[in-house]
């Protein structure tokens, strides 16, 4: 680590942990990636906050697959709860409170099950990434109400996909080393985003959506 950039070593001398510094430098890359997926590829996910936070939750869990298992469990339980609670005809917030509680218990069961199946890694997952994912349920159920099951499920899968890509990028040692040496490169994400923000071409997904029109116009 002899090439370490002076700005990074300054942060470290001030007592900021290296991991934190790297995470904060990764954030612009992750959110730019999400913006790129939306504007150019056409993968929507739940806005920008959710895929970004899920990416960081994945990074905080020892193994990616445990993160994915927790994510999938949260979505499935959230979906089931919507059906179960529908008949009670409750108002939105109390209903959501019940959903969140049940999701929390399910995750606890999941962790215990992991221990029982000798997957101790699962039980060792720290609390904050889990809490982050539990709160995902509100986003998911809200989308279910507004846009229907199919869209909500599709957006959940898209969020998962983007977060996995984000996870691999943010945990790529080559990139981490590069940032430690040239942290200013991160500023390049700003012109990239200005370009994305002015981009008015068709998204890749739109070539698929409008294929009949494109062929028969």
């Amino acid at each position, binding site marked *: 680590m002899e090439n370490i950039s002076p700005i990074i070593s300054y942060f470290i001398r001030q007592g900021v942990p290296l991991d934190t510094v790297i995470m904060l430098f990764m954030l612009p890359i992750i959110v730019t990636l999400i913006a790129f997926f939306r*504007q150019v590829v*056409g993968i929507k996910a739940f806005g920008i906050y959710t895929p970004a936070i899920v990416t960081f939750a994945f990074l905080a869990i020892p193994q990616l697959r445990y993160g994915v298992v927790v994510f999938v469990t949260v979505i499935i339980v959230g979906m089931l709860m919507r059906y179960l609670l529908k008949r009670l005809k409750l108002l939105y917030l109390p209903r959501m409170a019940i959903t969140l509680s049940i999701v929390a218990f399910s995750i606890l069961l999941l962790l215990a099950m992991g221990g029982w199946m000798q997957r101790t890694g699962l039980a060792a997952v720290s609390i904050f990434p889990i809490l982050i994912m539990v709160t995902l349920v509100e986003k998911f159920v809200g989308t279910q109400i507004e846009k*229907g099951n199919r869209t909500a499920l599709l957006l959940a899968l898209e969020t998962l996909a983007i977060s996995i890509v984000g996870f691999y990028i943010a945990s790529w040692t080559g990139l981490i080393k590069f940032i430690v040496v040239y942290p200013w490169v991160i500023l390049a994400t700003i012109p990239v985003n200005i370009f994305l923000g002015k*981009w008015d071409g*068709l998204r890749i997904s*739109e070539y698929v*959506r409008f294929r009949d029109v*494109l*062929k028969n*116009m």
Partner: protein
Amino acid sequence: MLTLLKNRKKLLGMNARNLDYVRPYNLKKSKLVADDKILSKRILKKAGLPVPRLIAKISNNEELEKFDWAGLPASFALKPNRGFGGEGIVVVYGKKKGREDAWVKASGDIITVDDLKNHIRNIIDGTYSLSNTPDVAFFEERLTLLKLFKPYSFKGIPDIRVIVFNKVPVMAMLRLPTKESGGKANLHQGAIGVGIDLATGTTTTAVLGKGRHIEYVPKTRLLLSGIRIPYWKDILKFSVQAQEASGLGFLGADVAIDKERGPVFLELNARPGLSIQIANLAGLKERLERVKGIKIKTLERGIRVGMDLFGGEIEEEVEEISGKKVIGVIEKVKVIGKDGKEAEVEAKIDTGAGLTAIDFDLARQLGFEKTVEEYQKLDVDYEKIKDLEKAEKEDVLKGIPDIVDTAIIHSSHGTTLRPMVRISFVLDGFVIPAKASIIDRSHLEYPMIIGKRNLGRFLVDVNK
């Protein structure tokens, strides 16, 4: 692949819609109007547009508790004021028999006052509003289904979406509710979108939901193309008027047709969906760019421009399928006579006549002066020769120059024996060789009629 690259410039994508049209042309003030259904109802009504009648509104829990349920009519629609995409709407068709506190929904389910109260609480809490902000619930008059649309739609009312830009209607589609869409006319919920030819108001191609092309209403043999939408011009007029009243430069106007009231303006959309392009198999961007910057002074002019620029595809389609040209009742033709002599005239397309006929004057212009002269000299009175054999009749005109045949024509003016000459005429790009009878048509409006025998390559559209 090459056409794909060429056509992508004509298509409007989500990025271009937001960046190049919604942002610059739909200012925040106008967007607020579009997102507030009660407010837009008031503004449109003031501009003289017919809108569904507002029955009552409930803004908070206190009003909900005091609400007079007995005052509600047997049928109504309950909507969230700032709802979007058709979510949170409840439509009831009548009171449940023998009960004062229950109604029947489109699905046949019963909905009670308690259910309604619960739903309204959710609306007030903002469950269905943009960004979940507190909202107002309102009741409005339920529209009744037009007989024409009955076989095509499942519960619910179809509506017509018209995209208006720069006072010009640029694209339109008919939206038909289906079982999948739960009686709602929103494409993303599974409704059918049918493209409309702007000039005639006739439906063309159709899409189910957001992607699949269909020709028939699912599980039936009902063809979706060729439906003639009634009040078409009024629908376009209302759409352009709504643009003027709302200030939305890039507007998606929704108009429904009520059985009794005729066209009724439903809703303003500041961010109209893009699937209309799939329904019409046409690109919006190309159309928007053609209309951009044109100075449109009056409403009528805007409608005219839209109809002229973006209509007529149906005709081309018919021509493509049948291999025949569609022509009107009166057409301009170039007639070629003796020695290449030409004349341009308006001809009447007459499917009631067998043969083509031309006036004396026109015949002279075409180099048949001698024929006309000799024929006039003979001054044949049909009454005198009517008992002759066919060959003998033909002999009467023998000796007239350039004659190729004779014809006996029975018309409302009586029967005549006429000479025929060889001509050809150019109609809509086709050169048609013909034998034409010569007769005095000076008292008639058109110097030429084209009869059945020479119309084999054409289809006649009487509206053209």
